Every structure is written in C-alpha cells, then in structure tokens.
C-alpha cells in the first residue's frame, strides 16, 4: 500500500487542527460571551462551510490563492512559491473549511459556563488569562478536545476543497481521499478498499471519542 497519501493527510490534519485550536478558542469564546455588532453575520460565516458545496468554496479559494490576487501575490512575494497547488495552500483551505468544526463545539462548551463563574474568578483575584487557564479550560476541555478531534478527522477525509485548490500532485497534495478517488478511477479496487478502511476506522474512532467527551463535561 502506498502510504504517502496517508502520511500527507495526517500531516495536513495535524497542522489544521493545531492551527485551528487557538483560533477556535478565540472565536468560540467571543461568540459564546460577547455581544457585538454583526455577531449574527460572523456566526453565519462560521457555519457557512457546513452548507456550501466544497467545489464552490474551493473555487473561491483557488481564485484567492492565484498569484494575481492579494493573498496569493503576497504569499509568492514572501516565499517565491505559488499558494495554489501547494501544501501551505491546502492547510489554509482546510482551516477555512473546518471553521464550523473547530468553533462550534468550543462555543457550546464556553457558553455552558455561567458568566457568574467567570466573575467569581475575577473577584477572587484571577486575571483574565488565569481565569482561562484555571477555570474556563478545565471546565470546557471536553468541548475543546472534541473540536480538535472533529477538525482532525474531518481534514483527513476532505475531498472537494482539496481537489479544487490542491489538484492531485503525488506527495504534495494527493491526500487520502483523493488517492482513493484516483485508485477507483484506475480500477485498483483493492488499494481503494484499503485506504477507505483506514479512513473509516479513523472516522469511527473520532466519532466515538467525541461522544465519550460529551459525557465527560463537568456539571456546572
């Protein structure tokens, strides 16, 4: 079995999940507690990848990644490489595609902490960062971990967006699900079956983990 697509997908999933962790924390917490102008719009934007066809999102990302656009141009100027059809491009696309998976579980977990509990921490002398580290995260960690696991697994199996912005370049952008598609196209059903089994097992473990985490939430 060609393990390169598996390794590439694991790398992509790890980078995406790790980078989304602080972002999800920041956005999830803000959406859980703060009221601000345009909040509904931000929430809609975060949830958009759930309903938007991956090809549509992929198309817009491809346009944004082109060297003629601001983002793609800046990336090329900085690194000398093209963002589209590159691994950093895949990571960027994955991050956007995974926004709802990274943000929503954390938003829910933080929203479940009564505001009074945070205020009690402040009145007890704990600073904002200390309150996050010693009160909020120890209460909300199942949601944070669920977000990480969901983002990781979702990235492992990503297809449409990856194909649109990454193409199918061996060892660079050919991820697990693209390799499966590629093998089926070549009538190599055995290899497709093996790779599919890997993805199935990973997804099953992830969903079981997320279910288990939901049961671990601290009663507030």
């Amino acid at each position, binding site marked *: 079995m060609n393990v390169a697509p598996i390794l590439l997908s694991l790398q992509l999933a790890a980078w995406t999940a790790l980078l989304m962790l602080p972002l999800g924390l920041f956005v999830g917490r803000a959406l859980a507690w703060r009221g601000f102008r345009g909040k509904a719009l931000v929430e809609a934007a975060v949830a958009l990848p759930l309903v938007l066809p991956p090809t549509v999102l992929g198309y817009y990302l491809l346009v944004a990644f082109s060297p003629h656009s601001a983002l793609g141009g800046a990336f090329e100027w900085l690194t000398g490489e093209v963002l589209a059809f590159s691994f950093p491009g895949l990571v960027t696309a994955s991050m956007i595609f995974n926004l709802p998976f990274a943000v929503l579980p954390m938003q829910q977990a933080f929203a479940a902490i009564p505001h*009074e509990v945070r205020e*009690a*921490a*402040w*009145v*007890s002398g704990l600073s904002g960062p200390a309150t996050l580290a010693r009160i909020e995260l*120890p*209460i909300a960690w199942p949601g944070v971990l669920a977000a990480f696991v969901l983002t990781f697994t979702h990235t492992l199996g990503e297809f449409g967006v990856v194909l649109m912005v990454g193409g199918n370049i061996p060892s660079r952008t050919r991820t697990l699900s693209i390799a499966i598609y590629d093998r089926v196209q070549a009538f190599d059903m055995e290899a497709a079956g093996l790779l599919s089994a890997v993805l199935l097992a990973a997804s099953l473990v992830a969903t079981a983990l997320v279910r288990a985490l939901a049961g671990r939430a601290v*009663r*507030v």
Partner: protein
Amino acid sequence: MTVPPDVRGLRVRLRQDHPVALDVAFECGAGELLALVGPSGSGKTTVLRCIAGLATPRQGEVACDGEIWLDRRGDVAVSPQRRRVGLVFQHYALFPHLDALANVTSAMSHLPREERAARARALLARVNMEGLEARRPSALSGGQRQRIALARALARDPRVLLLDEPFSAVDQLTRRRLRLELVQLRREIRIPMVLVTHDLEEAQLLGDRLSVLHHGRTLQTGRLENVMRRPAGALVARLLDQRNVFAGVVSHHDEEAGTTWIDWAGTRIECALATRFAPGDRVDWVVPESHVVMHRRERPSRGERENPVRGIVRDVVILGGDARVTLDVHGVDTPLTFEVSVHVAKRNRIAAGAEASVSLLADGIHLMATEATG
C-alpha cells in the same frame, strides 16, 4: 489612591440613566451590616456588581477603607481583581471542577503558596465544613455550597463583604442556621458588609442599617429602627410592608402638650409634635400595626381615649394563632390593618361586618411629606 481618613468603611455613590437607571448613595461602616432592600428589579444586584467592579456606572464613586476604587470624574476604575472584595453570589458561582478546598485556595493569590491550604482549611472549619474539603460542589447540598462560597469570599481577606441574596436558595431550616452563623461571623470580622435581600424579615434580623432601593434609586438609608419607624415617605413605608399608610392635613400644633393634630377624613388624630409641617400642609402618615390597639367590648380602658377610631370589619384572616383584621373606617378608602390573637378576636366577636373600634397610639404615628409620585 487614598481618600481623607474620615472616609473609612464603604462609601458608594452611583448615577446613570442607561442601561439600568441608578441613583444610589449610601455608606456602611466597618463592622456594620447594611441591608439593601427593594423589590425585584430595583437594581440591588447591580449596586453590588458596581461595588465589586463587575459593572461600571456612568458616574459615581466607590471608596472603601481609605482606597478609591471608582471615581468617574477622576477616571479611576480599579479592576475587580484589585478591589479585595468578598462576594457571595446568589447561586454561589462555585468552580464546579474544583473541590471545596481548591475553591477556597483559588481566591488566595495574595498569599504565599505554602500558606494557602492551611488557611483554606481554617476558613472551611470556620464555616463548619471540616471533613468536606475534598468534595466537589455537585456533591454538596445548597447550604454547604453557600458555606463554601462564603469561605471563598473570606479567603481574599476582603475589605468589604457583599452578599447577594445568600439565603434564597436554601430551605428554611438551613436558612435559619446560616443566618445565625453570619451573625457570629460579624462579631469576628470588622469590615463593612452589604446584604442584598428582598426579605424584610431577614433585613431586620441581620441589618444594622437599612437602605431602601426602588427603580435603581436610593429612597432612604439609615439605622434600621429609624427607617422602619420613620420612613421618609409613603412609598418607603409601603416597600417596608407598612400597610397603614394614609393621607391627612395638619390641623394645628400644641407645642405645650408636645402634640400635632391632623385631620384624617374628618377624624382628629393626635401625634407627636412635628413642627416641620405647617398647619394646612397635606401629609402622609403611617401607624405600625403594633400601635393599633383594639378596644375590648366589655372592658373599656383609659387608653381608649387616645385616637379612637370606629369602623366596620371588612375581613379577618387567621394565620396560626393570630388574626389579621382589616377595618373600613368611614370616609377612608384604604382599610386599617392590625393583628390580634385569635382568642381575643373571638371573645370580642370580631368577624366580617361587625363593628369594632381601635386606638391609634400617638407615639407610633409618623408624619411624612407627601410625594409627587408613587
């Protein structure tokens, strides 16, 4: 920043129009317990939050123990972390993932790490929670949670203790016990304490001073007995559950006899001299139920000459051993209310429709300026 030495204890001035209207002013000395009372939605909790720094009014000052915590004119707004406030939240707001001991030590960042556990154990012992240090809040009863919340509030070595309806979520037996413990605690710590409550009985049991709040406005603050006996106006009297609030007109003063006479719908009522009102002034007046004495049918007494009032019994409600009687007085819309024991009511044949007479004891009658509103 420091304030003049005469401003010890807690001094609160708050003013704003939005989002919650506030016009609040009161002081609370060290070792004193001020009960902040008012109906739901009167802004009591907002006031506590402003003292703790969890809310900031548009205008105002909060000073405690010689430190200014808030001065909107001087642009001072000390953070909640630096105010040294002990706050017991209404629903306790304990940290659910920490055991009782850790809940208390988490408020001890001002102490060296090695001292915290021993001090927290001592505080938990003080609130009768020995042996439960390792329990999480979810494994504790309402009363036990309240005690942990109190221990955590004290763990800060606070300059002021704020209690937000701390006994509202526990059963009556526990409430009585916790109130007793609070009274004992007061003897030991000499800091200002502000108790928010809508329970007047609780305010009277625990408070030295009383501040009455209505729609975010302080109506009256003073010594408990003083506010109870001499409310500033009819609204305060009603908020303090005084039912016998009536309107009258000052008729004349008799300075020699030390009395002022008022006209109450044609009845002359004698009360203590109140020269701050001129003859002809419209006033509101209040007489506590304890100063309404029913005349016995068969046994007239000398006291019956003091402000005798006759009326028809509208209703008698029996509550335990007491009968609450409402009496319609001729020419007055609001009935007079008083209590007698059930056997006295029976012996005097007090029932709806019966005629009865009472005396309003002059030394209990308090005259108040009429209010434009309320």
